[in-house]
Structures are given as C-alpha cells and as structure tokens.
C-alpha cells in the first residue's frame, strides 16, 4: 500500500485527465450502444428511424442489449430443448439440474406465494422470469457479452410484466372494482378510503419500482466495481498495481456469480409475491 501511495503521488499530475477517461470508459461499458464489440471489431448493429406513437419517440433499433436478450433467449431455448429432448421419467445430467431448479421454483416460490392451484398455473411464467433474469445476470461475466439486466429499461420491462400480470389476473379474478377495492385494507374509516387508496396505489408502484431498481443497481454496480478495480492499473500507470486490481476484480467476478443467482432469485421471489398479493388480497 505504501508503494501504491507513493505511485499515486508521483502520478498526481496526470491523474485528472486519466480519471475522466476511465470514468467514461466504465460508463461506456455499462451503457447500451449500437455496436457489439467482438474481439476488438466493432460490429455495427442495424438502426432504424425512431417512430412517433402518441407523441413518444420510440427507437426500435437493434441495440447491443437487444442482441444480448436475444442471445439469452436463444441460449435458454437451446439449453432446454437439448436437455429435454428425451422425455424420461427420471432426468439425468444437466436436465436433472434444470429440473431441480424448476421444482424449487414451483415448490418453494410459486406454491407458497400463490397457493396450490395458482402456483401450478403460474409456474411457467415464474420459471421464465427466473431463468431469463439469471441468464441475463450471468451473461455479462462472459467476455464479448454484456449484462442486459444492467440496463434499467430491461428491468423496467420485466417489472412491468410483473405489475401487468398481477393487475390483469387480479381484475379477471375479482372484477375491475373488486380488484381495486381490495387495495384498500378492510376496516379503514370511510373518510380515509380515498386517501388510503392513493397511498396504496403509490405503494404498489413503489414496490415495482424498487423491484426494477434493485436488479438494475445490483447488476450495474458489480460491473462498475470490476472495471474500477481494473482501472486502478490505468490510473496508477503501473504494473505493480496489477496483482491488487486483478485479484480484487476476480474476487468481485466470483461475487457477481453469487449476486447473479441471488438477484435472479430475489426478483423471481418478489415478482411472485406481488402477483400473489394481487390474486389473493388481504393476506
């Protein structure tokens, strides 16, 4: 550390400009772009003219993260397609691992939160949530790929699917008025009902906003930390910093694997919980 401190004072003159560059580099890495960096070759992805719907500019260009979610989806389809080609009563190998995860999702996430019947009905959706989020989370740790869940728009889309599922099935189950009436807890004085309704509605939105922010922030933070550690080498302009920064970067990388699983689980768990709250209010 003493050497590092000495190096940092030695390089203090050039540090200002470097830090800016590093920051830019990190932000560039975690943001969406129109190109895919394949082995140093910047593959330009097709761009379309933004279309305007209801006064909103919608840019349907195939950006880097769009490609990433497609790769994630394709990977999942291939993984499941190949693993479950043979439909035996007792699966083997990779299929057994996948089946264990599916069973875990069904028995530990879906059924406790949604009840026996709804749990079984929603298991496909919840499984898709889990495996899609998990794949997206872990993708960024593989070179050439980026983390689509590190983009707030993707997590927002996922959280909106949770919100939409809860609301749509809640309305189907309890009727339009019944569903929104259930937002207000029973036993509230009549005069407070409008206020409570607004508060509960805001609470509903906040829950889902927290859901999308949690996943996004976790994913982005991990990548920023990895690059920040690596950037120490560039900032200090010394290979002496390399063991320190690479060691920590590898540590954070492993941590990211753990976080990728945990966040996929948390996202799935909370999504199920929120859907369950809409389907079975007053619990």
């Amino acid at each position, binding site marked *: 550390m003493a050497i590092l401190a000495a190096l940092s004072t030695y390089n203090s003159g050039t540090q200002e400009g470097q830090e800016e560059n590093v920051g830019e580099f990190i*932000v560039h890495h*975690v*943001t*969406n772009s129109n190109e895919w960096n394949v082995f140093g070759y910047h593959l330009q992805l097709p761009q379309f003219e*933004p279309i305007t719907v209801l006064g*909103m*500019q*919608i*840019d*349907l*260009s*195939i*950006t880097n*993260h*769009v490609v990433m*979610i*497609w790769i994630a*989806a394709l990977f*999942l*389809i291939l993984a*499941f*397609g190949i693993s*479950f080609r043979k*439909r*035996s*009563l*007792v*699966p083997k190998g990779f299929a057994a691992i*996948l*089946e264990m995860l*599916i*069973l875990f999702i*069904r028995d530990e996430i879906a059924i406790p939160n949604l009840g026996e019947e709804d749990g*079984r009905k929603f*298991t*496909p*959706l919840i*499984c*898709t949530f889990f*495996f*899609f989020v998990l794949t997206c989370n872990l993708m960024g740790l593989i070179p050439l790929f980026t983390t*689509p869940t590190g*983009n*707030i*728009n*993707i997590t*927002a*889309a*996922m959280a*909106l*699917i949770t919100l939409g599922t809860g609301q749509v099935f809640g309305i189907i189950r309890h009727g339009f008025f019944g569903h929104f009436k259930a937002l207000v807890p029973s036993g509230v004085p009549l005069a407070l009902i409008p206020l409570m309704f607004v508060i509960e509605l805001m609470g509903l939105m906040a829950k889902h906003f927290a859901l999308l922010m949690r996943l996004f922030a976790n994913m*982005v933070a991990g990548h920023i930390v990895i690059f920040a550690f690596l950037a120490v080498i560039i900032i200090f302009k010394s290979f002496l910093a390399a063991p320190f920064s690479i060691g920590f970067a590898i540590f954070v990388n492993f941590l990211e694997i753990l976080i990728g699983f945990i966040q996929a689980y948390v996202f799935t768990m909370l999504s199920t919980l929120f859907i369950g709250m809409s389907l079975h209010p007053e619990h």
Partner: protein
Amino acid sequence: MLDLDPGLMIWAWVTFFVLLFILYKIAWKPILSVIDKREKTIQDSIDRAEKAKEEAESLLEKHDQLMQTAEEESQKMLKENRELAEKSRQEILEQAKQNADKTVDKAKSEIEKEKEDALYSLRSEVADLAIAATKKIIGESLDESKQKSIIDEFIQKMPKSTQH
C-alpha cells in the same frame, strides 16, 4: 445510463413473451407434466407399499391370533389329558386296592375256616384221647355217650382264652 428507452422495453417485452411461449411449448409443459407424472407414480408406489404393509400387518396379527388359539387349545388338551390320566390312575389304584382287599379278606376267611376246621378236629381228637385215657384209668365203666357229655362240660368250663 438511466435514460428511458421505450424501444428497448418493447424489444424486451417481445423477447420475453416469445421466450415464454417457446419455453412453455418445449420445456415447461413437458417438464411439469413429467414431474407431475413422476410424483403421481411415487405417490402411487407409496400408497401401494402402505397398503401392502397394512395387509402384511393384519396377516401377521391373524397369524399371531391363530398361534395363540392353537397354544391355548394345546394347553387345554394337555390339561384334559393330564386330568384324564390322573383319574384313570386313581381308578386303577382304587381297583387294585379293592382287589387286594378282597384277596386279603378271602385269604383271611379261608384261614379262619381252616383254623376252625383244625380246631374242630383237634377238639374231637383231644376228646377221643381223653376218653381213651380215662377208659384206661377207670376201665370201661362209663358208656361212650356219658363220657362225651362229661368232656364237653369240661371243655365248656375251660377259660375262654383257650377256646380257640
């Protein structure tokens, strides 16, 4: 980094729902049905095993009961036989005793008779001897009938203990 991009969101939705649909077709439906089938198979096996166990238990109980009845029966039979044997033993013993008693009695009476006969003959012998002796002493003065009556009288006068 935090700017909203509706296009990306639309792509995410499209991708997610297409993925959900395809995975539902190729993965979730078959896997979940296989799991259900397997769970049903396991449950059935457990139920069957349970039933078999119950059956075996009831059979065992029946067997035990049977064993117990057999045991009781044999005990009863043994007891009866013992009683019977005891009874017949007693009877045989009784009979033997009776037989022996009878034999003893018979022998006793026979002995008595013999003794009586012997005494009788002895008595007449003694009388004859006495008469002969007296005849020798006093000559043949007295006739035979008178002598007999005198000896009889004599014998009657003898102490009772010497009679037999």
